[in-house]
C-alpha cells in the first residue's frame, strides 16, 4: 500500500445530521496529477479538509505515504477555495506567509515569493494591500502562496475559478510545466472539465451529496502536454466521458 502517496479508503463525513461524504475511495500515486470534479456541495472542499488534516473523517482512513493524514506531516500544501488573504499584510507578505508559517526567515520568504510575481502576473502589486487587488489577482496571490511552499502534495481547490480564459490557460500551462519539472503529487478540484482533462492523469468524478467517487477516468494523452493537446481527438473524447458521467448520474 505504501506505493500510494494518497490512500483514501471508505471515508465518510457528516456534519450533524448532514451526510456529506459516504464511503469514498481515492488513491493517488506519487507524482500523479489527479483531478476531482463534482457538483456544488458534493463535499470536495470537505474532502480536502480531511486530507490536509484540518478535519477528521467520521469513518474510514486517509493515509499519506502510509501514514494517517495529519497537520504535522508537512507533506501537504493546501490552497483553500476562499483566498483568505490577510488584510494587514501586503500582497508580497501575503504570498510569503506560507513560507513564514513553516519557519523560513522573513527576508528569504519574501525573496522566494517575490520571484514568482512575474509568472503570476502580479508584478507591481507587491506593496499593495489585498483590497486593492481584483478578484482574479487575489486568487493568483493565494495560489502563489501555496505553490511557493514546494511541498510534495499539492491540494488545489478551484485555483483558477476567478480567472479569464486566457490568464487561466497561462496559469494551467505554468502548473503543468511545474508539475512536469518537480513531479509533485497534485489533487485539483475544478468545475472546468477542460481543465481537468488537460492537466490530470486521472479525473475522479464525484456524485451529488453524499459525495462518493462514481467514476475514474484515465486521460490517455501523452506527457508533457501543451496547448496543442486541446485539439486532440482523445482530449475531446475524455471531455465527453467526464461530462457524460456528470450528466448521466445527475439527470437520470
Amino acid at each position: 500500500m505504501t506505493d500510494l502517496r494518497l490512500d483514501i479508503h471508505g471515508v465518510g463525513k457528516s456534519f450533524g445530521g448532514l451526510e456529506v461524504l459516504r464511503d469514498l475511495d481515492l488513491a493517488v500515486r506519487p507524482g500523479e496529477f489527479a483531478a476531482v470534479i463534482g457538483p456544488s456541495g458534493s463535499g470536495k472542499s470537505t474532502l480536502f479538509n480531511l486530507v490536509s488534516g484540518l478535519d477528521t473523517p467520521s469513518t474510514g482512513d486517509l493515509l499519506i505515504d502510509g501514514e494517517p493524514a495529519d497537520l504535522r506531516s508537512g507533506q501537504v500544501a493546501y490552497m483553500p477555495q476562499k483566498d483568505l488573504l490577510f488584510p494587514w499584510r501586503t500582497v508580497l507578505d501575503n504570498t510569503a506567509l506560507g513560507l513564514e508559517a513553516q519557519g523560513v526567515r522573513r527576508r528569504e520568504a519574501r525573496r522566494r515569493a517575490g520571484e514568482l510575481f512575474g509568472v503570476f502576473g502580479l508584478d507591481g502589486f507587491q506593496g499593495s494591500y489585498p483590497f486593492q487587488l481584483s478578484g482574479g489577482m487575489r486568487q493568483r496571490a493565494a495560489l502563489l502562496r501555496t505553490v511557493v511552499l514546494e511541498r510534495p502534495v499539492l491540494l488545489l481547490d478551484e485555483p483558477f475559478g476567478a480567472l479569464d480564459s486566457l490568464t487561466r490557460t497561462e496559469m494551467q500551462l505554468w502548473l503543468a510545466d511545474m508539475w512536469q519539472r518537480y513531479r509533485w503529487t497534485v489533487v485539483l478540484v475544478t468545475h472546468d472539465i477542460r481543465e481537468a482533462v488537460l492537466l490530470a492523469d486521472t479525473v475522479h468524478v464525484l456524485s451529488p451529496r453524499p459525495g462518493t467517487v462514481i467514476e475514474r477516468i484515465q486521460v490517455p494523452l501523452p506527457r508533457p502536454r501543451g496547448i496543442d493537446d486541446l485539439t486532440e481527438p482523445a482530449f475531446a473524447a475524455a471531455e465527453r466521458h467526464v461530462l457524460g458521467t456528470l450528466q448521466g448520474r445527475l439527470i437520470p
Partner: protein
Amino acid sequence: MAEHQGQEQQEQQRRQRRQRRRKTVRRALTAVWPPVVLLAVVIAGWQVYTSAAGVDPATLPSPARVVAQGWANRTDLWDNTVPTLQETVLGFGVSFVAAWLVAILLDFSPAARRGMYPLLVASQTIPIVAVAPLLIIWFGFGLLPKMLVVTLTTFFPLAANLAAGFASTDREAMRLLRSLGAGRLRIFRLVRVPSAMPYFFAGLRVSITYAVVGAVFAEYAGAEKGLGIYMQAQKSAFRTDLVFAAVAVTAGLSIALFGATYLLQRLVMPWERALTEEDRS
C-alpha cells in the same frame, strides 16, 4: 478645436487641484476646530456662570481663577506632577507587559483561561479604597504601592480586550495557517496578534486613560508628594481653584497619553491607514 479642448482640460485640472487643496485645508480645520470650539464654549459658559451668579470660589472657582492661580503656583504643581508621572509611567509599563503576558497565557491555555480569568475579574472588583491602607502597611509609602495601583487599574481593560481580540481571530484564517504547517506560536504571531490589534488599541485607549487617574488615586491612600496629595492638601485648605488646576494637569497628561495611542496605531497598523486614505479620496 483641439486647442480649445486642451485649454478646457487645463482649466479643469487647475480647478481640480484647487479643489483638492481646499479640501485638505478644510479637513485639517474640521479635525482641530470642533473640540477646541466645544471646549471653549464649555469654559466660557462656566466663566459666565461663576461670575454672574457670584459663586463662592471654594464651591466652584471660575476658569480664569483656576488658570491664574494654577500659573501662580506652577512650581508647586510641577513638583507634584513629577512623582505622579513617574508612578504612571512605571505602573503602566508593568501593566502593559503583564497584560500581554497574561492575555497570551490565557490564549494558549484553556485551563489558565478557565482558572485565572475569574480571579482576574475578581482582582478588579476589589475596591482599592478598601485595600489602600493594607497596601501602605505592606509596601510603605514609596513608589511601589502606587505603581501597583496603576497596574491594577490599567491592567484589566488591556488584558480583557487583548483576550477578546485574540479570540476574534477568523476561524478560517487560523485553519489556513494550520494547513500551512504553522505551529501554535507561529499562528499566534502571524494571525492572532494582528487580528487582535484593533481590540488592543480600543483597550489601550481605555486603559491609558485610567493610568494617571490611578496614580492620583493611589496617592490618596498615602504619599509624600504627588498631584493626589496636592489636591487633598488644597481641598483641606479650601483652595478648590488649585484642586481644579491639579485636575487640569491630570487631564492634560491623560489626554497627551491618549493622543499618543493614535500615533502608535499609525505605526503598528499601516494597513488601516491605507484603507482610510482610500475611503477619503
